[in-house]
């Protein structure tokens, strides 16, 4: 069978990778660097997602108050015919009349069993934060928050709970309080999570593309040098009637060899780096929840092998195309 020739040419490929070991090593080095950076980014992303996910689910809620703004915009308050202010609102129809009462309300919530802490967010705070959020998202803020409408935000209590178990009960308890309008998950946090995730994703894609290009350039160059150093062999192979596929084998094997070796080294190196990094981190913050390498090992290795094989095979294929067009006698002139 042709297996014998295949073995022979595979051996030739590995020999030529070894003969060009300095170049092979250089391209393995660059490939490893690219793979490790890509791997670190994936791990960072996974950890960020997990951390953010944990925060998202975290027991923080905003309890909006029945204050003047609520009375004005909430639509649940009957406009009094007389005795009200210029908007027809009676002082009895809303609960929180001033900052003292707001702080008092916060203290009331803090007394609940499952509540860890409460922070008062004034209407002014809320307005500033929402304005900033909208600006971040590229919205045209002035048209929404025009002067004439005043501040549309009610004051709120930002409630952090002790645990998730009694979360629903605690929310119920807060809702039952007289001064509570509604209870919502905290939105500014969700917003910043959205931005962090989007930033990470965009960054990851760019880094991936750039590193992939670098890998291709470096591996192509190595294969080109190998091809140059094997031009004598190629010319003989062509003269005796070796098919293009056979002429290719040593180079494709060399490409695969470089790609696979890089993948294995990257996996090991990344494991080591990640372990050192997470151990240091855990020493400082023992409570931090970290993605375990074991969970990611297979996926990462798959990605590395894919990058390595892709770079190796594609590069060797394209680099040798040019040479395959050349004929034996021309080789001495290359």
């Amino acid at each position, binding site marked *: 069978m042709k297996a014998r020739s295949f073995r022979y040419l595979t051996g030739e490929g590995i020999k030529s990778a070894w003969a060009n070991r300095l170049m092979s090593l250089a391209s393995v080095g660059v490939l490893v660097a690219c793979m490790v950076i890509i791997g670190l980014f994936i791990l960072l992303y996974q950890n960020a997602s997990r951390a953010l996910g944990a925060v998202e689910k975290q027991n923080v809620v905003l309890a909006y108050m029945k204050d003047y703004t609520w009375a004005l915009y909430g639509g649940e308050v009957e406009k009094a015919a007389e005795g009200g202010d210029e908007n027809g609102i009676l002082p009895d129809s809303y609960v929180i009349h001033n900052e003292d009462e707001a702080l008092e309300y916060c203290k009331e919530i803090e007394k609940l069993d499952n509540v860890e802490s409460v922070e008062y967010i004034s209407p002014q705070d809320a307005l500033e934060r929402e304005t900033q959020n909208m600006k971040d998202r590229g919205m045209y803020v002035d048209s929404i928050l025009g002067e004439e409408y005043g501040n549309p935000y009610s004051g709120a209590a930002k409630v952090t709970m002790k645990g998730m178990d009694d979360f629903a009960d605690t929310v119920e308890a807060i809702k039952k309080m007289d001064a509570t309008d509604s209870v919502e998950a905290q939105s500014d946090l969700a917003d910043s999570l959205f931005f962090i995730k989007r930033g990470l994703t965009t960054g990851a894609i760019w880094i991936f593309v750039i590193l992939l290009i670098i890998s291709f350039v470096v591996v192509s160059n190595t294969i080109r040098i190998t091809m140059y150093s094997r031009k004598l062999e190629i010319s003989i192979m062509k003269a005796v009637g070796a098919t293009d596929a*056979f002429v290719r084998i040593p180079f494709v094997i060399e490409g695969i060899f470089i790609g696979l070796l890089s993948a294995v080294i990257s996996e090991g190196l990344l494991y080591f780096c990640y372990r050192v990094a997470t151990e240091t981190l855990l020493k400082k913050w023992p409570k931090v929840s970290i993605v375990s390498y074991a969970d990611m090992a297979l996926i990462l290795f798959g990605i590395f092998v894919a990058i390595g094989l892709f770079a190796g095979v594609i590069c060797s294929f394209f680099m040798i195309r040019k040479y395959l067009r050349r004929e034996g006698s021309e080789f001495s002139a290359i």
Partner: protein
Amino acid sequence: MSPSSESDKPIIEFKGVSKTYPSGTHALEDVNIRIKRGEFAFVVGSSGAGKSTFMKLIMREEKANTGTIIVNGFDLTKMRRRKVPMLRRTMGVVFQDFRLIPKMNVFDNVAFAMHVLGTNANGRQIRKEVSNALAKVGLGDKARSMPNELSGGEQQRVGLARALVNSPDLIIADEPTGNVDPNMSYEIVSLLTEINKRGTTVLMVTHDHSLVRDFKHRVIMLDSGRIVADNAGGDEE
């Protein structure tokens, strides 16, 4: 080996072949020639006459612009690139610059030509064929030598063994003695003559008049891309 109807046909046939390089050089013009199976032909002519172009057309390293070329039953003018290896397997090429792989010993250099073809030969058959080929060129005892340990004449004999190892019908040699000193040249042409006597067609370009004179073979003379002399049929037909 080939059917008898095949062996009557010329192994090489050029009909109205012209070759113009993209640079505009007319390397060959209206070449018509037939070389029979089992012939030995020298191709002579001054530098730039078109001798190498003639050989390259036979190996299908270059394509003719006009005319028809038939080699070993293959119509080269209609041949697809993918089929070229099959044509080359029927011929053995000897290079002027030997083209031995320096890091391989003599045996491995010859075996290389078998290994890279993906044939069915097993290790034992390869050893047998390589040993035979080396014996034919008188280098049976140099199998383990490295190319740089050999003289130019010996290196070219390794090249010849490599050309023979796949049992070709045709040997193509463009100035095989160009880098070999004169008495070694005689030895090489003697070997080629031996090989020719056992049935292999030999086509050899040379500048060396004494070789042409002393070995009484067919002589095809080119000048400015045209065949100006050919003593075909002098000793045959």
